[in-house]
């Protein structure tokens, strides 16, 4: 009886939508359609990136302009590890986790003791430092050419068949999404939301805001790095571009498009974002221009994002009950 109640408390619209999406992504592999699988893979990778980003942005209320740093750390960890230490993509991707953990803690110590304004400035600065280090440390990182030949076929696993890699990504995607869902439902989810709502009050409840922010940053950093790691294996190439600030702005825009105060907001944003960028080639030239314009339009007119818009529509038609998907 108790178990049943626990289970009921865990189920809501979010998990149903999430399971449907994972099922749908699984079905796409059966079509064998290369282009659909390509788009679906990118959606999963950027979905992970954006969901990781939003732990910091949507939950903890911290605006990072430097998440390309974490994505880049993941990507370069895999590349350096598989090319120099042990030739296996799975071990490489897993290796990026401790590296990302360490990076997050260092970044946290440098950026979290100050206010939110400082955090935004300092994350931007740190990611640009990382970017210039990637370019300057040619002997290690290959400079602006980056690192090529990241293996899909390794000692332990062989991901060279497109379908196999697709499932590989899907497993990571599903595991991370369900993990984040559990986090959202757990006490830490509640604490992180409280942090974003009114961080000044928490110390008087006996919580250290620094520790809570550090937890948020670490989760966000590791998840973002995993996205970067998968990205590097997917393309077999990694260049410093992934650490550049404009790249780091993409998960931010995805979160805003979908709705940063909704659990699934960033994922919805990633689906829209990736679908648009991969199918409408004409965008490419004006890409950053559109990104900036979209950002400003979202801030001025649709701060709730797409899900916020849908919720207000549902509210108008008295369907609010079915669309309570905020986290």
């Amino acid at each position, binding site marked *: 009886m108790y178990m049943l109640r626990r289970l009921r408390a865990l189920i809501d619209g979010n998990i149903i939508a999430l399971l449907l999406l994972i099922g749908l992504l699984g079905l796409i592999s059966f079509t064998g359609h290369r282009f659909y699988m390509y788009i679906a893979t990118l959606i999963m990778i950027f979905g992970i990136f954006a969901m990781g980003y939003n732990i910091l942005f949507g939950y903890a209320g911290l605006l990072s302009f430097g998440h390309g740093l974490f994505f880049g750390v993941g990507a370069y960890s895999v590349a350096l590890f598989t090319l120099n230490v042990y030739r296996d993509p799975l071990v490489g991707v897993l290796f990026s986790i401790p590296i990302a953990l360490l990076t997050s803690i260092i970044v946290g110590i*440098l950026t979290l003791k*100050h206010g939110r*304004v400082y955090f935004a400035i300092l994350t931007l600065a740190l990611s640009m*430092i990382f970017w210039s280090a990637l370019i300057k440390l040619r002997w290690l990182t290959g400079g602006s050419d980056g690192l090529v030949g990241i293996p899909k076929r390794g000692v332990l696993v062989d991901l060279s068949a497109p379908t196999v890699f697709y499932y590989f990504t899907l497993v990571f995607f599903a595991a991370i999404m369900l993990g984040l869902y559990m986090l959202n439902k757990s006490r830490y989810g509640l604490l992180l939301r409280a942090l974003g709502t009114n961080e000044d009050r928490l110390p008087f409840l006996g919580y250290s805001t620094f520790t809570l922010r550090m937890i948020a940053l670490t989760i966000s950093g590791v998840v973002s790095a995993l996205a970067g790691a998968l990205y590097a294996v997917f393309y077999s190439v990694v260049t410093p571009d992934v650490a550049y600030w404009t790249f780091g702005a993409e998960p931010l825009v995805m979160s805003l498009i979908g709705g940063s105060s909704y659990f699934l907001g960033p994922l919805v944003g990633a689906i829209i974002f990736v679908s648009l960028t991969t199918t409408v080639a004409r965008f490419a030239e004006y890409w950053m221009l559109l990104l*900036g314009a979209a950002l400003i339009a979202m*801030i001025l007119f649709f701060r709730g994002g797409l899900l916020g818009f849908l919720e207000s529509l549902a509210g108008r038609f008295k369907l609010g009950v079915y669309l309570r998907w905020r986290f």
Partner: protein
Amino acid sequence: MDLTSFLVQALIGLYKGSLYWILALGLVLIFGVVRVINFAHAAFYVTGSYLMYTFYTYTSNFIVSLIIAMIITGALGAIVEITIIRRVYKLETIYQLLATFGVALIANEAQKLIWGKGVVYISIPETLSRGVNLGGITINYYMALIVVTGLLLFIATIVFMNYTITGLRTRAVWRDPVMSEALGINTRLIYTLVFFTGTALAGLGGALTVPLISVGPGLADYLIVTAFIIVVIAGLGSITGAYIVAILVGVFSSILVLIVPELDIVILYIIAALILLFRPHGLFGER
């Protein structure tokens, strides 16, 4: 490393630092009064560079081009303030940062569309291109002019903020916007004016840069990070601090080029990070 090249690098650092200062000044002014960190500030700076390039190529008149570049950049800043930034003052800080970030993205991309992806530059006016030759490198009058301009701007800002009526009003807004409003000071107008002034100063700095450094995509990204490092080390909102730190950063990075040409910027950033670790509010910040 001989003493002459050391000295030359220090002098070069002095003018670089002065340019950093002109860049940081607008940022500090806008943050101090409007309480918005302008992520697009360096984009305005580079806009000044491009405008200078265009007008100088057409008119060949240095002073006129400089003034036009400055005013147009300032006007662009005012337009951005009126159309976008003003609408987010009442929202959380996060949205203000986001708005200026969006402006930066648009400005960078618009520049590529208008002026292309290559670099642009103009030559130094002939009268100013002469100078003193030190160990094979010419320290010209133009560099000296920039150092003097920087110093004059510093003195002018301090005098303005301390002794004039408008300065007093601006300072009142700096301290407490609600109170100023109650005293009948038109904060709306002051915010727009400060945005105009701040971005016009960025435009001036940018315009002065074109004869010295080739201007192209990516420069703004590098500059905004440097400017942030400077104002953060100085302590957000400190004018005197920003001047001193800007000059120090200029000189220091120039000398580092001699010692560790590979990692000059990275080392500078690490020093900045360490300073922040031990002085969270910067060297000159209050609290």
